[in-house]
């Protein structure tokens, strides 16, 4: 029996939906193999993970709290990826945002109380936008490779953040971490641990969906991403749009950091670079750069995260197993995307059955 791939006449809509679901199942299957090799019962493990993520109200709340920064980072990365601008610096832009809001919280004490949070949010977003905008300008003006630039800038800002919370901005007590934000400037909670950041994320999804699919600018981004030369011939400015998209991408990643620190950590301290920016890359890819699909992917990723924490407690498995499963999700998905444009043909069996 031989297999061959034949190009489809048009992109298959059915496959665009089926492939991610099948990939997800396949990755759980691959995960089961890994788990069996580690002498764990896969079904038991998955059940434990599910319970760990959604088993009680407080667990659902935990998962949702994690979903918010993941979703925002996914949206941020997705915007840049639309232009085929490989921004792998959402992590750094996130940290930059946290530094921005912390600066306001700690030093802009002259502001009236009610103004501290809004100003902090704005400054944090701007910090993220600047950190994303720099590689954008480098790329647009001097064709500096964005993958390398964004990656390296992560290390710069993470190192700087460390300097701030260990040295310059360290709170008088303890050996690391800034002074906690004043309580009147925390982002309010709406349901248990779940905070108002959820609204920010959902409103942003709606705005982005509208901008990307309904407006001239979204159309231009689409053109640039799919054929930069043709877009230029049609009068679309590549440079301007790269810089603009990176400012927005960095700004949204900054917002993720701003919200998480204003609502959850309330300070700049160790663990600020929690990997949300990197997971955002997976979310952007899995959602097909679609903001609405990003919601579900972000919940899934958050659930894998909280679920695997539970593994440690209930099954005594290393929580790193969750990361293994996250990694396994992307591979079948990328491989599977070939089926949206090609179909698999079985070319019939070879007659000769003897060797």
């Amino acid at each position: 029996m031989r297999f061959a791939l034949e190009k489809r006449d048009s992109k298959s809509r059915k496959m665009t939906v089926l492939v991610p679901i099948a990939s997800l199942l396949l990755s759980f299957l691959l995960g089961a193999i890994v788990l069996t090799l580690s002498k764990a019962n896969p079904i038991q493990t998955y059940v434990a993970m599910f319970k760990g993520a959604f088993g009680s109200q407080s667990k659902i709340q935990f998962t949702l709290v994690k979903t918010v920064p993941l979703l925002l980072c996914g949206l941020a990365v997705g915007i840049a990826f639309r232009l085929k601008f490989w921004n792998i610096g959402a992590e750094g832009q996130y940290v930059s945002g946290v530094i921005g809001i912390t600066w306001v919280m700690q030093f802009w004490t002259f502001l009236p109380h009610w103004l501290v949070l809004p100003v902090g949010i704005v400054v944090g977003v701007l910090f993220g936008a600047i950190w994303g905008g720099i590689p954008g300008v480098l790329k647009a003006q001097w064709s500096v490779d964005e993958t390398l630039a964004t990656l390296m800038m992560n290390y710069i800002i993470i190192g700087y953040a460390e300097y701030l919370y260990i040295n310059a901005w360290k709170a008088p007590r303890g050996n690391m971490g800034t002074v906690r934000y004043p309580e009147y400037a925390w982002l309010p909670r709406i349901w248990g641990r779940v905070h108002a950041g959820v609204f920010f994320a959902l409103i942003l999804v709606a705005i982005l969906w509208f901008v990307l699919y309904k407006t001239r600018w979204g159309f231009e981004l689409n053109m640039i991403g799919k054929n930069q030369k043709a877009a230029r011939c049609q009068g679309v400015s590549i440079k301007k749009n790269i810089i603009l998209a990176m400012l927005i991408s960095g700004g949204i990643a900054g917002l993720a950091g701003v919200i998480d620190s204003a609502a959850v950590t309330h300070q700049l301290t160790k663990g600020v670079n929690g990997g949300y920016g990197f997971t955002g890359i997976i979310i952007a890819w899995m959602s097909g750069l679609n903001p609405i699909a990003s919601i579900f992917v972000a919940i899934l990723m958050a659930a894998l995260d909280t679920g695997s924490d539970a593994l440690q407690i209930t099954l005594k498995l290393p929580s790193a197993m969750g990361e293994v499963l996250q990694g396994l999700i992307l591979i079948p998905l990328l491989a599977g995307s070939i089926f949206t444009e090609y179909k698999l043909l079985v070319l019939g069996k070879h007659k000769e059955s003897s060797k």
Partner: protein
Amino acid sequence: MHEIETDDTPVVRMVGITKHFPGVLANNNVDLTLHRGEVLALLGENGAGKSTLMNMLVGLYRPDSGEIFINGKLAEIHSPQDSMALGIGMIHQEFMLVGNMTVAENIILGMKDLPFVPPLADIKKNITELSKHYGLQVYPDKIIQDLSVGEQQRVEILKLLYRGAEILILDEPTAVLTPGESRDLNEILKKMLAEGKSAIFITHKMDEVMEFSHTVQVLRRGTSVNVCPTSSIKRVQDLARMMVGRDILFSLDRGAYEPGEVMLEAKNLVMQSVGTNKYILDNVSFTLRGGEILGVAGVAGNGQQQLTEALTGLMHVNSGQVLIRGKDYTNKTPLQIIRSGVSHIPADRGRMGVVGDMSVGDNLSMKKYRTSELSDHSVIKRSWVRLFAERLIETFTIKTPSQDTSVKFLSGGNIQKTILAREIDSCGGILIAVYPSRGLDVGATEAVRQNLIKQRDKGNAVFLVSEELEELLMVADKVAVMFEGRIMDIVDVKDAKTEELGMLMAGVERGSI
């Protein structure tokens, strides 16, 4: 050049070679014979089938029918390795060298019977000796990207010699060389021929034919139209006529020639390539009026495409002026030029003309999406786009399953019709078309030409770049001939003689013969 012995069996004999590509007959029953010590010049316009014929000799394509004999023996050439084993080597227009590796490494790259650790010291010695022998001046330790184009070409030649090539095929070898380097190449060739090696030389430059070759063979539209000794050619005009052909032109319906006001004007445009300062455009001037089609003739690569990119804002010029309706648009952005009323059908339709992964409807609206015809402030109105696309698909008879189909799934002709529809519909007076009928079948070609003439009859100005003289003589009112970045001359089509244009295309100055 010296006389050749003709008693022995030919080293290459191609008999009845035919090759089809989808929609194109690239070679039709072509015979070719090459003797030991001979230089054969293969002459013809772009698309005449020269490269296709040679690619079959080196195993990049397989002929549909016909046979190839090497040294009198029937040869089955399936790959470049096969042809190399038979002593045939080709130097392509684009060099096949790895820029950041040394000369020696490039020369042995891909050689089969080398030990796992190649004896580099010995190899370098051999290279140096071979280089001295032929006067090539190639140094094995130099890095390729530090070499000039002429030196790189010598590395390519040495690569073939090192592997024992007896028959060299050179695809337009002087196109990239300075006059001095061309003379050196001539000397190298002479030395190789004296040793009994032979060469086939693809070119479209008349003077090179006269200078380098013993025999000249002319291809036109895939058919061999003449083979004769170079010494028997008395007048260069004869060669030009053979190359371009004198087919009867069918005429297309067109209105009277009534030129209006000047729409597009170029004044002394100069463009130099970065780094080498070679002149890509050399003092180019022309005027184009409404109700007029200005054709640009010339062999591809003589600056036509860069000229159109300078006119459309995609490339910058070093000096000179572009005037649109008398206003200065030199080095303005593509968008500013589009807004001034210029439409552009680009040379490379797949890479510049459409976004393959977007739908026919989206591609049709890529100029007008920013106008109030298709969008309300910043929001694109999908329902308006649908109606608009439906209308254009009908008017321009674009064959597509639906307007939601990705453009990349359409045929070349329908992709071009999509571009044509978009550009003509949004045209504000000036249409720049670059090779608009390239690679299209007869029907689509006719549709393209008729549409260009319709624009002219409406009073619009049309700037048409084409490689086909016939097309220009049929469609244009005036023809400018470009050669090496210069406009050799601009002639009225009604006074134009094909052979004269052919000479200008080959860089022969008017009145020099």
